[in-house]
């Protein structure tokens, strides 16, 4: 299929596709780099008083990485979406600017002969992310290995989670970090991708059954038979388990919200979704009644000023940062006052980059970042709605939502709209695991956008149907 270029003048190599120009993507990438250069200029002007770029090498390397990714996509010859990469690059670039602007010693890592600070590390991760996303976009052709081994994926994900439960180290009261030798990572970031793949495969296979085989409960309220509900129940248990054992409210909310959205997309049953929300609310209330740390989180959210130097400190400082920024911000490099050499928000690079953006780039900057997420999600959902089969549609929708909902949860937490949870602002926050997971998401979305890809093998009959051999089923 790859070399079907009969009327092409001269393919460079046999078996390789003809390169396909991506002018729109190139134009948007140039716009992104120009915007970042202006930001870097503003930062440099503030730091040195001279009109110069704050970190020309970093910017150059990032631009070079984008160019390489762009060329790789052109050379691959696939008909991939041309807006996804620039939107992701815009968010990554803003994150890079913020990390370069923050005190570099917030995170320091020795890597061979080099000592890398916050900005360098973020640049490194952005490079890795670009490589991962581009490779997936170019290489991923067939869905089979994702959809056929869905239970293997789910098992791997649960194993990862179990490892974190058992061996995870506690950071800021949440058991999120898994350390294996020199490597430390947050498995829940990778888990979100794995779970979306599993949901998409499971729901694509069983969606008709879930929607149509109903058991009446009361009056017009019906639910799917217990056998089909079991995975949903398991999911609910998993989400609430994460809250209890990992103390990771954000991840639980993210998994569950994305799951409910996919369930709705698959079955079209609004009542199932409302029921799911109610169950989550009830479960959450029970947890809040049982566990003091959940109560404390809620109390801090409702009134951070009751403990301004303790549990409410970070949130109050973030709200002050947003307030200082105002409409247009104080300017890159001019804000984020330091108290004894430290930024007032300790977790600014992981949990509160939006506060940094809000202060230095103002509400304008915050809205721009929100808009970039919406563009990203819109492209993903567009891919979903024009997908040829259910699995691809659900996968594309789930991947887009994972980014969109995660951004909404942490942004809402930063702005005191919902209780604060320690998840990252996708593609902006510092952090290798998060960057890697979101790179996989962007890469898969790019790959799924290719409508010229190989047609799929006919899907296997649903598992339960095979077992039961329903009357009137395929002979």
């Amino acid at each position: 299929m790859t070399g079907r270029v009969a009327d092409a003048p001269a393919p460079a190599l046999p078996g390789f596709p003809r390169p396909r120009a991506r002018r729109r993507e190139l134009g948007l990438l140039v716009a992104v780099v120009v915007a970042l250069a202006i930001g870097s200029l503003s930062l440099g002007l503030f730091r040195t008083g001279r009109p110069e770029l704050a970190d020309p090498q970093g910017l150059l390397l990032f631009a070079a990485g984008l160019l390489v990714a762009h060329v790789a996509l052109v050379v691959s010859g696939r008909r991939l979406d041309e807006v996804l990469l620039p939107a992701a690059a815009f968010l990554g670039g803003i994150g890079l600017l913020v990390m370069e602007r923050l005190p570099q010693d917030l995170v320091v890592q020795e890597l061979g002969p080099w000592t890398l600070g916050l900005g360098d590390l973020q640049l490194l991760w952005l490079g890795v992310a670009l490589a991962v996303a581009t490779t997936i976009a170019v290489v991923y052709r067939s869905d089979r290995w994702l959809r056929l081994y869905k239970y293997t994926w789910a098992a791997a994900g649960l194993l990862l989670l179990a490892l974190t439960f058992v061996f995870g180290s506690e950071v800021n009261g949440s058991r999120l970090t898994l350390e294996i030798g020199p490597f430390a990572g947050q498995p829940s970031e990778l888990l979100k991708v794995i779970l979306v793949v599993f949901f998409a495969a499971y729901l694509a296979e069983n969606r008709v059954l879930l929607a149509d085989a109903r058991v009446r409960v009361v009056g017009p309220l019906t639910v799917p038979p217990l056998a089909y509900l079991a995975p949903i129940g398991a999911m609910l248990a998993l989400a609430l388990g994460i809250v209890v054992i990992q103390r990771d409210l954000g991840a639980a909310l993210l998994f569950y919200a994305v799951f409910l959205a996919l369930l709705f997309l698959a079955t079209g049953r609004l009542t199932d979704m409302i029921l799911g929300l109610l169950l989550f609310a009830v479960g959450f209330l029970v947890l809040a009644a049982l566990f003091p740390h959940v109560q404390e989180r809620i109390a801090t959210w409702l009134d951070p000023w009751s403990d301004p130097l303790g549990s409410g400190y970070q949130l109050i400082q973030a709200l002050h940062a947003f307030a200082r920024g105002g409409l247009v911000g104080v300017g890159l490099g001019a804000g984020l006052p330091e108290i004894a050499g430290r930024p007032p928000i300790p977790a600014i690079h992981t949990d509160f980059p939006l506060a940094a953006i809000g202060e230095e780039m103002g509400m304008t900057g915050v809205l721009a970042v929100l808009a970039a997420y919406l563009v990203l999600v819109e492209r993903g959902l567009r891919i979903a709605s024009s997908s040829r089969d259910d699995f691809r549609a659900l996968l594309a929708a789930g991947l887009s939502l994972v980014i969109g909902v995660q951004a909404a949860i942490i942004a809402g937490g930063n702005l005191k709209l919902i209780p604060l949870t320690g998840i990252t602002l996708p593609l902006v926050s510092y952090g290798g695991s998060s960057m890697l997971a979101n790179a996989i998401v962007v890469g898969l979305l790019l790959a799924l956008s290719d409508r010229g890809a190989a047609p799929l093998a006919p899907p296997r009959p649903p598992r339960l149907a095979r077992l039961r051999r329903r009357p009137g089923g395929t002979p």
Partner: protein
Amino acid sequence: MTAGRGPGRRVPAVAVALVLAFGIIAAGSSYWQVIRADELASSPTDAAMLAAARTVVRGKILDRDGRTLASSRRAEDGTPYRVYADAAVSHPVGYAAQLYGSAGLERAYAAELTGARGSDPISRAFAKFLPPLDRGLDLRTSLSLAHQRLAVSLLGNDRGAVVMLDPRTGEVLVMASTPTFDASGIANPATSRQTFESLREDEASPLLDRATLGRYVPGSVFKIVTAIAGLGSGSVSPATTYPEQPGAEEDGLVVSGYTIKDGHHPFTGDEELDLLSATEVSCNIWYALAGLDTGGANLDAFARRLGFGEPLPFDLPTATSQLTNGGGPLPGGFQDDVELANAAYGQGEVLATPLQMALVAAAVANGGELMAPRLATALVDRQGRATSIEPRSMGRVLDPASNAAIVAAMTLAVEGEWGQLFTEGAKVPGVPTAGKSGTAQLGGSGEPHSWFIGFAPADAPTVAIAVIVEQGGRGGERASPLAGRMLRAWLEAQ
């Protein structure tokens, strides 16, 4: 069959939900970054404000004649610190110190004084496009340093407070609280710790601004509030007399078993008392009866119009003046008629700040309309451009006709044959003066608090005053002559 259509067809619904969520987040951003921005960014606990306090030279604080009340000096290591003109102004001006934060106007106007905030909203919003301020704005106040000094010296070694303001504009001319403290000592890094610690341990609590934060039993000065509520609600008229009087005066008036007594019977004798004469001789029985007629609901409503019940709209934090402890079954929160009757002449559970009682006098002096009290009158930038802060009305408390009756009653209480006996020394020679003295019984054996509120000239008031001297004895002994001296000094200076 619901699932017949593919998942792709339902994507728009999910998209709409997400767009809605992002819309709410954008609204949250505008709430914190626009609506609440000014308040948070200029709060003295803001990180940027704290950082600025270490480097920026604060603007000056000036009195109404341009005299410097607060200015800055640099220590040997270059860090700026504050110097204050006089301990007499320490309470309203406050202090700004590295170790102990800030208080008073230094705290309330920290953003403007440190230049973190421009004087107008437009330049505030676009501050990043303007050259940075190397020095904060100057703050012009309505205080008069000379009269502030006089008030503190007249209070002498007593604890107490004097609040004097212009009833027409709400400008606070004097806001003195004794004992005062050495604000320069707190601000100077060399003496800061020692000064602050010894002030904190002083049992006279000199750091407490009694004028705004001290809550006192008002005694008879509160009768003016009862008169306002009674006339304003139509429950009493200037000619109202009570059949219980003068009969009840000798042995006291019994309300639900509690006896209210009076001391004026020996010289009023069989005289029938109306509003004017009852005010002149400070008759508890007339006011207790008037309070019962007016009722708790009306008394509460009119007290609230005057500022009771919540912190005052003012440049500095104020304690809340109260009519009752709240929670009682009767209207207004009173427990029973005894409490209401006692409250009507300023006892019971009534507590008021000196600033609040000055506002009562000011409302009457201004024809029944209450102007919001204020200290800050203008912000001045380095080029001398001033942005003035305009007077603000707190609304009309009482109609002009009823108000005129209270002016007449208060004038009688200072100028009248009997009134003079209670308010000795309050009269400004050659100027018609109005006022009301108060003697706040505290229970126990201690001397009562001595109160006076009033204004002058009574026919066209330009100045209103409240004076309290803690345990200064009867109102006429200590507070009245002090107020008279202050009013006279002010009118002579004009």
